[in-house]
């Protein structure tokens, strides 16, 4: 016990401080510090980390606080930094006057449908690319991989024209169709399926299972980490997107939350508390999902980073 703490603490203290608060270049090894009396009841690293963490937290705290302040409180100079009481006027305004409930519903529909289609279509295509060799599979896989490097800005104008041609502009369909299945979902699932041992599938194959049954009964139940990664990232991307809704949706009843928020500001000047209440409502689902499934989130995002 003591050995580990001193080793950890000693190494910790001896480790360079990249932000430049310590200037000593480790003249003495960690050994010398082992016997030193600790001046602080906690690791000195907290002196660096705590203020920074506070700096990261303050905007969110401020978001929450201002959403329960009255506009009078915010609109005086200098504005109050702490609410005198809880005023739910902002939330009431958001629920009654603006289209928020509708926008919330739109966002939920678009995100859930997109997540579902990405899981289903991504699994199908990913499995075919991982395990089936058929005419054209190679070429299509390469083509699909290549599309991952295409930036959205390059495709957005023709995509708008295609959606217009399909008659989907100003409907939720315009938001769903372009992201029904992303090459990223296909590729990520394919890579995961490739990592599964073939023997399992071969056994089922010998028993006469069809490809579909093998996928449903054997492959997918083993692929929960990859499926959750796809679900998390698809949800985040769809829920948080502003660019595409901004282009494809003009009618207020079809707005998503992000689009609603972005235009709200211009329409209701200085309705700050209502705007912050809307922000809280928009962030809440993502935050709850994140706090509930932190591990899956972090794993998803670190692994997504490695798709290349």
């Amino acid at each position, binding site marked *: 016990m003591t050995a580990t703490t001193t080793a950890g603490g000693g190494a910790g203290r001896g480790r360079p401080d990249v932000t430049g608060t310590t200037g000593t270049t480790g003249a003495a090894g960690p050994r010398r510090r082992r016997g030193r009396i600790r001046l602080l009841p906690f690791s000195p690293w907290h002196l660096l980390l705590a203020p920074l963490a506070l700096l990261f937290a303050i905007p969110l705290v401020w978001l929450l606080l201002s959403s329960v302040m009255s506009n009078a409180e915010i609109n005086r100079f200098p504005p109050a930094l702490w609410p005198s009481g809880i005023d739910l006027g902002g939330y009431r305004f958001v629920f009654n006057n603006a289209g928020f409930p509708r926008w919330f519903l739109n966002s939920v529909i678009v995100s859930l449908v997109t997540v579902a289609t990405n899981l289903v279509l991504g699994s199908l295509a990913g499995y075919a690319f991982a395990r089936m060799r058929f005419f054209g599979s190679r070429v299509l896989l390469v083509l699909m991989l290549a599309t991952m490097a295409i930036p959205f800005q390059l*495709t957005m104008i023709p995509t708008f*024209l295609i959606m217009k041609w399909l008659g989907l502009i100003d409907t939720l369909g315009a938001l769903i169709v372009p992201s029904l299945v992303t090459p990223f979902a296909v590729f990520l699932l394919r890579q995961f399926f490739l990592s599964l041992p073939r023997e399992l599938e071969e056994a089922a194959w010998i028993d006469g299972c069809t490809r579909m049954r093998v996928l449903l009964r054997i492959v997918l139940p083993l692929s929960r980490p990859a499926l959750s990664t796809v679900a998390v990232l698809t949800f985040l991307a769809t829920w*948080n997107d502003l660019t595409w809704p901004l282009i494809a949706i003009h009618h207020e009843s079809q707005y998503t939350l992000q689009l609603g928020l972005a235009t709200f500001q211009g329409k209701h000047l200085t309705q700050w508390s209502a705007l912050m209440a809307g922000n809280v409502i928009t962030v809440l689902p993502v935050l709850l999902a994140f706090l509930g499934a932190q591990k899956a989130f972090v794993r998803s995002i670190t692994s997504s980073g490695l798709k290349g």
Partner: protein
Amino acid sequence: MPGLPKPITVADAGPRRAAGARAAGRSGPRAGGHRSARPPGGRLRRGETIAGWAFIAPAVVVIIGLAIVPVGWSLLLSFQANDLVTPGHWVGLANYEALVTDPAFGQAVRNTLVYTALYVPLSVALGLALALALNRRIRLVGLYRVLFFVPFVISATVQGTLFAFVLDPQFGAANSVLHALGLEPQGFLTDPNQALLSLVGITLWSGTGFCVVVYLAALQDVPVSLVEAARLDGAGPWRLLWHITLPTLRPVTVFLVLWQLITSLQVFDLVYVTTKGGPLGATTVIVYFIWEQAFKNFTAGYGAAAAYVLAVALLTIAIAQRLVRRRQEALENRLAAGRIGGSGGGPEPVTGGRS
């Protein structure tokens, strides 16, 4: 979920079947010979092509239809004058020629580059520093990690409206704090000299957590034996960092720099929400320029030309990333080959986490 118990029984049966049951011929004629071992990979059953196409058809339609086709279409558009409503007419390279001399586009490129040059190194360096600080046994590490990371999952819209409020010259908390400290109030997003810097600050708040998390994951793969050995040899903390930790993290650093580069060249949502390119064009970035041309001024051909310029830049980075990665993988393979039978948990840095 109800399917979960199944694979376990199959997993049990798998090897047994392969070894014993097959010899006993229990599964009948179908299990005969090498045939049984090949299906999930080989082209054996008839109709495999049909089945394969059925599996990939929806994905192929969506991805070809809404990615490959638009790439070509965009190229055509960029040679046209097009207002998205009436049919366009051919103008050749005029759009590209106009771009070169358009001061607004020049400013957009400059703004984007300044933003990128500030954001990318700062976010990666800060991410590394925080990850190194967090990568030790102290209390509250979990809490710190959450606090640094949470802004990353918050949408650019919320970030934008929140900071437009916090940095509001009149009603914002930032000036309120400055006032309390007896300092001059600032213009922040409304000041042409501060707007772009404010945007960098906002994205540092939201984007650093990503670097922290990726670096933290990578730090778990710094070989402990190597660190111990170096320490026994008397290496100080700086030398440990310089000669062991940083070299191990190099692939991750390269990845993060390129990744942040790509995302920052594409910044748009935050700009739209906070400044709409203003004040006085001080925050007009390339994507904002493209959006404005295509969907506000209805000069879609011109917008498409600008999009092509951006895409070529991004593609160059993506190709660079590919090449770097390939070289790294080759290096890793060579290292792995030379170390067969060596330490079990050899370093296959974060690439091991790739799923």
